[in-house]
């Protein structure tokens, strides 16, 4: 009896030691998140519960939007197929916990990059895929055309767990206006309550206002006021502590933006391999070894451009053509008067 026990113990110990060694060496080479993603065969991506233009599911369950495209780009780079993404719809309240607890690997959910979020809660923002700002929506019939016409007693509908709640207080306090905040957990309920007349104004990021306006019973009855009361740089987020994964997500986004800068589109990407411009050749994988840095093959960026398209294509498809925000405003390339400017891929 004892003899067997001894043998069994040594066997278990040996297996354990072997296991530790193999995992150790692999983890050293690759990122844990990357390894898990490749093993699972899909990218786990947290998105909104439905914000047209950013992340929205149609009746058949297909997700579209510029936030969705970031995850698709990562899937194209890492797994070779932009459709290998599992989307998890999250409320504003759940999103960070879902990411830090490891339920998702990328949070691409119109999330504002702020100091406290970046520093405090174990998250890392990898970039900005939409420059936004908080605004206010009112009924046209109210005759309000500017936030300067707001008066004491105004009620404002919004979401909980967002920077909106904090900005709203800053804004009304600085104007000395007494207001009634009505904060809901889900965006759909905010829209329903505002639409019913519970609130005089609905406040959130301007892109969100433009998108939600399309859901109102009569969109033409509402206008978004011209004032922007805050900076809201929205971008994808990853867990802190996996710098390789962080780099992959960051450069997947940057690739889309830089591809637009150099005029590479999903249609002409293959032809660009013979371009004279080395920067273009690097982006389509015809020159250099850019993928090796994060353990990917050299066609990773070509796949992103071919399968998802460049940033301009994504914007046009999701936001401009759907009538949400036809004008790109600050989200135009720096070469065309906007502020989209990414470090060079080299």
């Amino acid at each position, binding site marked *: 009896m004892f003899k067997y026990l001894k043998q069994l113990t040594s066997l278990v110990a040996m297996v354990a030691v072997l296991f530790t060694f193999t995992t150790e060496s692999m983890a050293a080479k690759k990122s844990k998140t990357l390894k898990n993603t490749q093993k699972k065969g899909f990218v786990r991506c947290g998105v909104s519960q439905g914000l047209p233009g950013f992340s929205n599911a149609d009746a058949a369950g297909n997700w579209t939007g510029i936030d969705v495209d970031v995850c698709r780009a990562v899937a194209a780079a890492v797994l070779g197929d932009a459709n290998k993404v599992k989307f998890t719809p999250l409320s504003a309240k759940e999103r960070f916990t879902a990411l830090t607890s490891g339920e998702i690997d990328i949070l691409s959910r119109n999330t504002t990059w702020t100091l406290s979020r970046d520093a405090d809660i174990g998250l890392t923002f990898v970039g900005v895929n939409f420059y936004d700002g908080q605004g206010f929506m009112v*009924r046209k019939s*109210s005759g309000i055309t500017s936030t300067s016409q707001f008066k004491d007693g105004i009620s404002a509908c919004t979401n909980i767990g967002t920077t909106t709640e904090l900005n709203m207080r800053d804004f009304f306090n600085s104007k000395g206006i007494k207001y009634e*905040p009505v*904060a809901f957990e889900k965006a759909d309920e905010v829209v329903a309550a505002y639409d019913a007349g519970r609130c005089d104004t609905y406040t959130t990021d301007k892109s969100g206002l433009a998108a939600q306006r399309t859901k109102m019973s009569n969109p033409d009855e509402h206008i978004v006021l011209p004032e922007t009361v805050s900076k809201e740089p929205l971008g994808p987020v990853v867990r802190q502590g996996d710098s390789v994964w962080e780099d992959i997500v960051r450069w997947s986004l940057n690739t889309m933006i830089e591809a637009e800068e150099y005029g590479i589109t999903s249609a002409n990407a293959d032809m660009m391999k013979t371009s004279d411009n080395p920067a273009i050749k690097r982006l389509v994988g015809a020159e250099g070894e850019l993928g090796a840095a994060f353990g990917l093959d050299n066609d990773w960026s070509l796949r992103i451009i071919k399968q998802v398209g460049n940033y301009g294509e994504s914007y046009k498809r999701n936001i401009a053509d759907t009538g949400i925000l036809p004008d790109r405003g600050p989200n135009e390339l720096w070469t065309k008067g906007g502020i989209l400017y990414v470090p060079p891929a080299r």
Partner: protein
Amino acid sequence: MNFKLKDIVPQLITVTAVVLVFGFFTYNAQINMENRGIDFGYGFLSQESSFDVQFSLIEYDGSHSYFRAYLVGLLNTILVSVIGIIIATILGVIVGVARLSPNYLINKFAAFYVEFFRNIPLLLQIFFWYFAALRALPLPQDAEAIFGVFFLTIKGLYVPAFIWQNFSVFFYSIVAAIIAIVVIRIHAKRVQENQGKQIPVFLISIGLIFILPLLSFLIGGVGISFEVPVLKQLATTSFIYEGGVSLPPELIALTLSLSLYTATFIAECVRAGIQGVGKGQKEAAASIGLTPNQVLKLVIMPQALRIIIPPTTNQYLNLTKNSSLAAAIAYPDLVLVFAGTALMQTGKAIEIVSITMFTYLTLSISISLLMNWYNKKIAIQEK
């Protein structure tokens, strides 16, 4: 010796298993938080919250601390639970008795109410009252005054505020009335035990509670005036009422749905309790000459209550816990304010969720203890 070991060993194993499981979870959480660079600590409670809350029983705005925000949420939860429990109890008792009524219409109506409301998920009912019923309410500018001073609108119920003069005198008059009633009750009991005479305690009590405060108005210098809500224009089509007290529609919808839902269960407890008292009890009481009122008050109810109280306690606990569904319709309860906004702004998930859980646990245990005490009081006392 062997016998004792057999007793102890399973318990020891259970305790060890529980400790190990908890230890594992704590250790796991610690390691994970360390890996992800998340600090653990309750220091954030004293930081400035920097968000506002729609409805608060205590003075609060964003310049107060997170702890203050916690208190705001807690008090709002208690408010909606207490109002809900009171309404649900009154409604539940009425419906429960109505279900036993020999009147066909009343009986069937009560049965229909119970079956209808207890079989629809509570969250749906909350949404119904908030979104469907709310949409039907008029905008402030279109609202018709009820009794000239109440305004029920989509933005809430506006009621006149009382403005008191010498409120303390009025308050003391009520305290005096209550003390007088207690003294009279004790006296009446003694008189009945010693001399067998009955004093109409109920009538005297009613008289006292009205006459003493009335006297305070007539000779105590107490005055009261009303501040009636007045319509105020914010923009061409946007209005509110100013002055008076405004009850947010979220509070109304939540209280309504919670009490209507829970009342069905309480009604069933009441019906079961009354039916649980033997028919012979009623007949025996009647045969010794008690009036029907006395039969109900002295014989049926004391026995029925013993059956009613324990399951009703469960319903009170359910109502309190269900009030956390408030978050869906923007009523700023503990879950919305603290486990919602505060959690999001600080990212202190473990701390805040544990505080919230502990708070609900404390609330529930308090209700349990109170009801158990009452249950013990009315239980059969063998002499």
